[in-house]
């Protein structure tokens, strides 16, 4: 284990963190603002990737595919909001869970019917398809830097909108006391629709950005969903800053754990035992982290004020 490798793995961890933030951003926005458990966030992410695959097939240009996929993701998100979710904001969290579970089943199967069960491909756009030499023999794809950049942009953008703009103020007010805000003349219904649509678009955006390096397959949103929830719970629900820092923390812990757990255990166990125990512990690490955080800070690390 060398210092260079440690640095590389730390970078990998931070990059994974930004990726996780990109995926979780929409979820924390919807949850934090509307107190709505949107389990369908995972399938919105998946739809973004699939839509990009189709539009890329039609246009041959990643940029067009991205824009078209975002628009389509927004429209689908709005459609689902109007048809199903709008009626559930006042309902119990559990009713929301049941309804979004039904939506997940429907979309996962629908995607299989429309696009087939085999994994699909979305290539990295040519402009960004180069790579940097990181260490001897290891390249770092420029596309990953794009993902980091887009994650940071989204973080900055969200922070700016929520804290510095008027609509952001309305969103925060609506989250704290929807009835009062409505009484003050703001159309809370429309506000929530806007937020939900935006959250859906963010989820789709994450799906498109990530598709070139990952497998686009039915059910790809399910494992991501759990990760996203872990991130926002650790970070504190409803807080963009919490989601960002929580994501970085999860990315770092997970990556460093996977990289060095076996080596760590090799210090006091023999090699074959270390190879057994190391990966098992590494897979549980983010859950152990979440349990620890909740033990010490039951509302997450940086809960949004007023929660």
């Amino acid at each position, binding site marked *: 284990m060398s210092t260079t490798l440690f640095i590389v793995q730390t970078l990998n961890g931070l990059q994974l963190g930004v990726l996780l933030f990109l995926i979780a951003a929409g979820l924390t926005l919807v949850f934090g603002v509307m107190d709505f458990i949107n389990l369908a966030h995972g399938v919105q992410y998946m739809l973004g990737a699939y839509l990009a695959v189709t539009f890329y097939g039609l246009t041959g240009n990643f940029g067009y595919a991205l824009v078209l996929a975002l628009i389509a993701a927004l429209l689908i998100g709005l459609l689902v909001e109007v048809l199903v979710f709008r009626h*559930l904001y006042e309902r119990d969290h559990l009713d929301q869970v049941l309804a979004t*579970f039904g939506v997940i089943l*429907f979309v996962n199967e629908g995607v299989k019917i429309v696009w087939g069960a085999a994994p699909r491909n979305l290539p990295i756009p040519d402009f960004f398809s180069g790579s940097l030499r990181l260490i001897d023999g290891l390249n770092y794809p420029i596309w990953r830097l794009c993902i980091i950049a887009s994650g940071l942009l989204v973080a900055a953008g969200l922070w700016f909108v929520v804290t510095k703009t008027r609509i952001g103020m309305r969103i925060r007010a609506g989250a704290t006391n929807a009835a009062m805000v409505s009484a003050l003349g703001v159309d809370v219904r429309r506000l929530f629709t806007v937020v939900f649509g935006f959250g859906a678009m963010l989820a789709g955006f994450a799906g498109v950005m990530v598709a070139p390096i990952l497998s686009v397959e039915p059910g790809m949103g399910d494992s991501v969903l759990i990760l996203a929830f872990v991130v926002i719970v650790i970070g504190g629900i409803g807080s963009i800053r919490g989601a960002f820092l929580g994501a970085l923390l999860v990315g770092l812990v997970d990556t460093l754990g996977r990289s060095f757990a076996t080596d760590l255990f090799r210090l006091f166990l023999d090699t074959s035992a270390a190879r057994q125990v190391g990966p098992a512990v590494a897979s549980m690490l983010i859950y152990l982290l979440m349990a620890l955080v909740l033990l010490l800070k*039951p509302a997450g690390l940086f809960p949004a004020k007023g929660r």
Partner: protein
Amino acid sequence: MTEPKSSARADRFAITLPLALFIVLALMPLLAHYLPGERYVIGLFARVMIFAIAAISLDLILGYGGLVSFGHAAFLGLGAYAVGITAAHGITDVTVVLPVALAAAALFALATGAIAMRTRGVYFIMITLAFGQMAYYTATSLSQYGGDDGLRLAARSTVLGLPVLADSRGFYFAVLAALVVVYLLCRMIVASRFGRVLRAARENPVRTETMGYNVHAFRLTAYVISGCICAIAGFLLANQNSFVSPAYMSWQRSGELIVMVILGGMGSLHGAVLGSLVYLLLEELLSGFTEHWKVIFGPLLVLVVLFARGGLMGLFGGGRRG
């Protein structure tokens, strides 16, 4: 909080519905005699009842206690692995295996519950998920007990040395008996002072605390009881399939249990039975029609939520909504 539509009607349903359900279930083996694949039908309903037991255990803490456990399948797995691991060491009698399963579940519930109870709402959901995942990954790493591939049992557990459970009918009635006992037990718990304190704590924990009740202790006790009951379901599940696998503990499985409870109508116990019945039978029926049955099943769930407040029990006007 919504009041029941009419308390007389609700009371009537509280007795007639579960009674009707249990009578139908008791007569099912007779009915199955006239259907193709008698053993298969009996096996199907035994499986429904096993998940009904698990759903009841979840309804106890979810419907009455307001605690949404997203890791409840871990108890299913604990019960199942108690059967598997003891069998791997030559122990197969229910008089030994069942207490082991209950003890394992109680310990796990105590340890994880003590930590989880410090949190509320979504945080509680996520931390129970975390513990469920930890149990799952531990099971997959147990190579000597099959790991991910699972563990095959040579035969079902014996009762005092007798292979009572080996026959499909014998097993069916054992499960039915367990279901009835669990249901009555939970009914008693809910109606008792313990149950009332639990429900009060769900409505207003601060008030209950000021009345002198240690809410944390009540909740933890309920969680342990719930875990133990779910482990019974796990014990039965392992026996039904003569197979133990970490798949019994996946987070998707925990999600399905929650869906069954909500679908049936939480806070009524027989709602949980109804929910698991409808969920599993519908799944079986639809998957026989088309490979893409989830495209129908998903919207059905959504429709139930949108139009049947309080789940299926809500349609009957019975059950409680919190």
